[in-house]
């Protein structure tokens, strides 16, 4: 099987869908002549031309809105945000138009659009460019939210997202575009709403997504030394949530650590913890632990940033705590 980087898997997904369906087009800052700020659209302009690979001005509210209008008119736009931090400028378009149009028009219009780009902290980008947006977007009824950590998942889920009739927010990561992995040559789709067990285990359920996945896999490896066998679940889709995959694992392990990029107050991790507490109450042997950002704005300084981010060591500490492990 070919080994691809995540950026190549994303490009291939867009390429295949653009070839398959002429309504699909890509729009965003630097997606065309520059081949994408992170080279995720390399070669697409040459192949499909300026009509289907559109360089925009720095005007997120504008091109997000144009994309939503195009989707309502029957096209299937892919809107690239150079980073989801800039989607804050287009927040109203996504919240009030993309997410609500289907309901506001009683189904006369659908908005089959994908907003994609890197999300969450990368490396020393400061407080305004290091934010994780799942906690905002997962709160919107009317959208789907995906976060990927491997080339295989990126390609299979992006293709499903482009074909979906609803607005989909698709999170990537600056620091993970180079992550490599096997991607089949033949076409495949990964259904939206299915979690994936990245590492089976029996003692602690470690729930994560996106950039948290490699952190948790490393924490699970470190926990082996303590004789703790972790099951790492990559949610992949954050809305709708794959409850059953989570519950099944928790009923087996009785212990849960959530580890992800994002602030601790409310949001996606809190939502998962809440569902577990209600549905799996009688199966819990320890309080659900969360490892995420510290409750502060991200520092630019590298050492302070490191202290803020979830790390394998912090996750290991939580894994030990829920296991009542004594060193």
């Amino acid at each position, binding site marked *: 099987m070919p080994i691809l980087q995540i950026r190549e898997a994303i490009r291939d997904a867009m390429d295949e869908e653009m070839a398959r369906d002429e309504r699909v087009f890509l729009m965003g800052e630097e997606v065309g002549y520059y081949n994408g700020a992170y080279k995720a659209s390399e070669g697409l302009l040459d192949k499909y031309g300026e009509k289907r690979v559109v360089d925009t001005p720095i005007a997120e509210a504008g091109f997000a809105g144009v994309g939503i209008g195009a989707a309502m008119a029957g096209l299937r736009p892919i809107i690239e945000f150079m980073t989801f931090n800039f989607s804050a400028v287009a927040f109203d378009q996504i919240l009030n138009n993309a997410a609500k149009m289907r309901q506001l028009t009683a189904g006369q219009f659908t908005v089959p659009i994908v907003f994609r780009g890197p999300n969450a902290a990368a490396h020393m980008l400061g407080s305004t460019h290091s934010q994780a947006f799942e906690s905002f977007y997962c709160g919107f009824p009317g959208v789907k939210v995906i976060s990927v950590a491997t080339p295989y998942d990126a390609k299979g889920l992006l293709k499903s997202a482009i074909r979906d009739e609803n607005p989909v927010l698709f999170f990537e990561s600056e620091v993970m575009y180079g992550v490599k992995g096997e991607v089949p040559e033949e076409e495949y789709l990964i259904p939206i709403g299915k979690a994936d067990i990245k590492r089976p285990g029996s003692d602690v359920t470690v729930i994560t997504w996106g950039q948290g996945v490699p952190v948790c896999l490393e924490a699970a490896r470190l926990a082996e030394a303590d004789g703790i066998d972790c099951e790492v679940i990559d949610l992949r889709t954050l809305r709708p949530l794959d409850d059953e995959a989570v519950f099944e694992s928790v009923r087996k392990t*009785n212990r849960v650590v959530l580890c992800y990029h994002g602030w601790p107050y409310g949001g996606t991790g809190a939502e998962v913890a809440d569902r577990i507490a209600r549905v799996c109450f*009688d*199966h*819990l*042997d320890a309080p659900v632990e969360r490892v995420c950002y510290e409750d502060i704005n991200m520092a630019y300084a590298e050492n302070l940033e490191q202290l803020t981010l979830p790390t394998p060591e912090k996750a290991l500490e939580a894994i030990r705590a829920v296991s009542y492990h*004594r060193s």
Partner: protein
Amino acid sequence: MAIIVELPRLSDTMEEGVIAKWHVAVGDKVKRGQMIAEVETDKATMEFESFDSGVVLKLIAAEGESMKIGTPIAVLGKAGEDPEAAISSRSGGGGAAAPKAEAPAEPAPKAEAPKAEAPKAEAPKSEAPKAAPAAKAPASAPALPREDERIAASPLARRIAREHGLALAEVSGSGPHGRIVKTDVEAAVARGGAASPAAPAATASVTTTGGRPYYSRPDEPQKLSQMRKAIARRMAQANTEIPHFYLTTTVDMRAAVALRGELKNALPDTKVSFNDLVLLATAKALETHPGVNAYWDGQTIVRRGDIHVGVAVALDDGLIVPVVRFANQKSLKTIATEVRDLGTRARDKKLTPEEMTGSTFTVSNLGMFGISDFCAVVNPGEGAILAVGAITDEIIAVKGAPAVGQRMRITLSCDHRVMDGAVGAAFLATLRGLLEQPLSMLA
């Protein structure tokens, strides 16, 4: 209803503890978060802050008594409430260290009398699970076992206990704040219930004759402090598991003595000791010899990324090793200030567990006791330890002629699994060089 206060877990490795001092008396009002006692753990004396508010109805644990975590130590409640009811409903099965301390006339079992009410909830448990919802309409709405309500237990532990018809009061919890967790209930189920009885008493004194009468006094087993127990355990482990070897060298301390004299004038506010110089030199030498800043983890050698130097501090009843973190990145002045502060607080037993863990190498100095040289025991989790002797005036040979110079002997004890003689020797040579030319490490 009164609240039973249990002996909390105050450090990761704490299994039992001793109330060193009560800070409240019966009748005192206690607020949540208020310090109510000092608890001696295996590592330090920690302040125990109450998790609850109320009036102190009874102090169950006596000062100086050793108890497992989770043991009831006090009762809080409303003024005038009877503490015995709470105690009896709590210790239904016969808890570990019961009211021994100061239950005046009434031994614990007496309190069984009011139990007629409380244990009711326990009785129907054979039929409760299914019967409850249908019948029993008028009986107070939720048929929750009331005494279980106050016992901290994980939901899973509760379920397993329910399934096995086991009262949580009979289980002692090993989780934080004495929380009963899955393994506790499973162990209790496997055991079938009750706890183990107490130990036998000591013997009396006797006189013996052997031609003439001698007065014989009985041996007295000493009550061990938690620290003593920890030292016994770890040192026995070290001397059985770690294959030690020892390297001794003599350091010419003339330059160091001169430098310390100058520092006394230059830094009047900071007292720099010879041991501080040794600590800095050790940290710098570890930087050059990462093979010594390493330990055997059971399978392999782990080289430590950071240099945290432990400083052995003698106490009246033991020994404690506070840690100077990132010692190689600190100035002599910082080290001196920090060591003084750590030493003072170590003697007051006010160090936090974090300040006593994580060392990657230890320095033990008995020079102030006039010891010329000695062999220390490697601290498990480290690869070597440096034993520092006294600085003494000795007759030395200078260019073939006798002269008086200051000498200090240092001995490195090494874990042979981690390093060989030559590695330890190279480290010592670097260390000696730094101490003999101390300005080199201040550069």
